[in-house]
C-alpha cells in the first residue's frame, strides 16, 4: 500500500488550526487516508478531527500516511506536503 513518512512542519504540531486544515484537506480526497505516528500507535482516519487531535502529534514528530486505491498516490502527495509546511505561521 502506498505510504508517505513526513515530519510535521508546524510548531504546534497537528493541533488547533493545522489539525483543522489537515482534516479538511483529507476529507476532500477521493480515497480514505489514515495517519499514525511513526513511533507507533494505531492508524486513524485522517478525516476525523478528534482522532487526529488525540494522536497528539507535535511539531518535529514523524507521521506515516497510508492510502489505497485510485488516486492514492496523489492524495498522499498533497497531504504529506501540507503536513510538512509550517501551517501555523502562514496567513
Amino acid at each position, binding site marked *: 500500500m502506498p505510504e508517505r513518512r513526513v515530519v510535521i512542519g508546524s*510548531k*504546534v*504540531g497537528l493541533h*488547533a488550526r493545522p489539525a*483543522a486544515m489537515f482534516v479538511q484537506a483529507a476529507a476532500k480526497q477521493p480515497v480514505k487516508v489514515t495517519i499514525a505516528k511513526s513511533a507507533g500507535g494505531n492508524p486513524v482516519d485522517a478525516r*476525523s478531527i478528534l482522532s487526529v*487531535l*488525540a494522536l*497528539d502529534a507535535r511539531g518535529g514528530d514523524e507521521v506515516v500516511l497510508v492510502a489505497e486505491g485510485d488516486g492514492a498516490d496523489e492524495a498522499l502527495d498533497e497531504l504529506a506536503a501540507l503536513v510538512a509546511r509550517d501551517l501555523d505561521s502562514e496567513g
Partner: protein
Amino acid sequence: MAETLSGIGVSPGVAAGPVAQMAAPPVVPTDATPSGDPESENQAAMAAMRAVSASLEERASRAPGEAASVLAAQAMMAEDPTLASKVTDGVQAGKAAVTAVADAFEDFRAMLAAAGPYMAERVADLDDLRNRTVATLLGVPMPGVPDPGHPFVLVALDLAPADTATLDKDRVRAIITEEGGPTSHTAILAKSLGIPAVVTVHGATGIADGETVLVDGTEGTVAVAPDEATVQEALDAEQAKLAALQSVSGPGRTSDGHPVQLLVNIAGDKDLAPAAAADSEGVGLFRTEFLFLDRPNAPTLEEQQAVYQRVFDAFGGRKVVVRTLDAGADKPLEFVTVPDEPNPALGVRGLRTSRRHPELLEEQLTAVANAAAASQAQVWVMAPMVSTTAEAAAFAEQVRGHGLPSGGVMVEVPAAAIRARHVAAACDFMSIGTNDLSQYTYAADRMAGELADLLDAWQPALLDLVRMTAEAGKALGKPVGVCGEAASDPLLAVVFVGLGITSLSMAPVSIPGVRAALAGHTLAECRGLATLALDAEDGRAARNAVRNANRS
C-alpha cells in the same frame, strides 16, 4: 410586589431587561431503555448530531473573528466520521441513542485528556458538544449561553471561560450568578466587557425566564419585577452619574492635588485599541500568559517580541508594566507545569517556574527588552508570586541586566508583604495583586464562591498587608501599586490611596468612577477613611464604616 435580591456587585453599571436562564448541563439517564430498533436509534442520534453541527455553523457565521473559528472548529468535531461510527457501533450493540452518544464522546474525551493539560480547552469544547447533543436527544433546554433573540439579562449558576466565547455585549445587558465570587471568571469577564454584574445572588436561578429584572452592578442588587417608573428612574440616575463621571478627566489626583496614577490591566494584544484609547497613564498590568497557553511548546523569541511591540506601540510614550509568565495553579502549561502537584496553588507557579525553566524567563526578558528598545513606551517589568527578598533582588538584577530600567515584584504572597521593607530595598517597585494576596492571607480558594466573604478585598488583614507594603515603598521612595480587581471599587480605591498606594490599575471601564471618587476627597480624608477600614472587625464592617462616613 417587587422583590429585591442582593449579592456582590462585581462590575459597575445599571441595566434592566428580561431574564434568560442558562440551562444546566443535561444529565444522561442511567436507565435509558433502547427501543429495540437499532436503526431508528441510530437515525435519532445522527439527526441530533447534524442539528448540533448546523446550529454551531449558523452561530459561527454570526460570531466575530476569534469566536467564529472556535465555533467552526467545534462544528467540525460534531461532523467527525469516527465519532459517528462509534455511535452507530453502540446502538447496534443494543444501546439507546443517548447512551451510545454519551459513551462515544467519553472515549474521545479520555483520549484528549490523556494528551496533556494544554488540551483542556478542546476537552471543554467536546463536553459542550456532548451536552448539546444529549440535550437535543432528550428534548431538554440547550445548555450554554441562551439566545432568546433579543437583549436579555443572563442568569447562571456560574460562568466558565468556555461559556463566554460568544458572549455578545450588545445582547447581554447584565449578568447575575447564583455562585461565583468577586474574583471569579464571571467577574473578570463582565468587567472587561463593561457589562454590569452581580454574583452570589441567592435565589437568582429561581427567577422565571422572561421576568424583568433591574440590576445594579455597583450596589450589588437585583430587583425582580420592578415597576416601569422604578426602572426608568434608575436608568436616568445612571445616565446622570455617567455624565458626571465623564466631566472629570486626565491624570488621577485627590481634590488637593495628590497624584495617583490610573492605569489599565490588559491580557493580550486583542482589544488593544479601546484599552489604549481609555483616559489612563498607561498599563499597570500586562499579563503575558495568553502567549503561552493552549500550546505544546513555548512561543519563539520573535513571536513574543512582535506581540510586545504591538502593545508598547499602542501606548506610545506611556508606562507599560509587563508581568512575566505566571503559569501554574489555574493556568497550567504543557511545557512548564509540574504534573500531579497535590496543591497547585501552593506549588511551582509564577516566578517559581523559573527554578526549573530559567531559559523561559531569560528569553521572555530578551523579547521584552528588544521590543522596549524599539518603542517609546516606558517599560517596567515585574515578576509574579515573589516570596523572598533574595528572589526580588535576583529578578530586579536580571531585568536591569537586559538593559531595562525598572524591575519590580508582585506582592501576592503574605511573606513578601510582611518583609516589604527588605523587598522594596531589593527592587525598583512593588505591585499588589489583591486576588492572590486575599487567597493566601485568608487560606481561601479564589474560586470558592461560598468563601466569598473571606476573599472580600475589604478584609482588614488584607488592608494591613497593603498598608505595610505601601509604607515600606514610601520610606524608600519606591512606587507601590494595586493591580487586582479591588482597585476598581471607587470607595476602596480611596482607602488604598489613604494607605499610601501610588497607582491603581484596573479594567478601562472602571477608571472614570475611580477618578471621580479620588477627585472628591483630600488626601487627609482618604487617610481618615483608611483608618476606619483598618479598625473594622471584618470586610463587611469595613465597607459599611467607610460608606457611612463617606455619606455624612
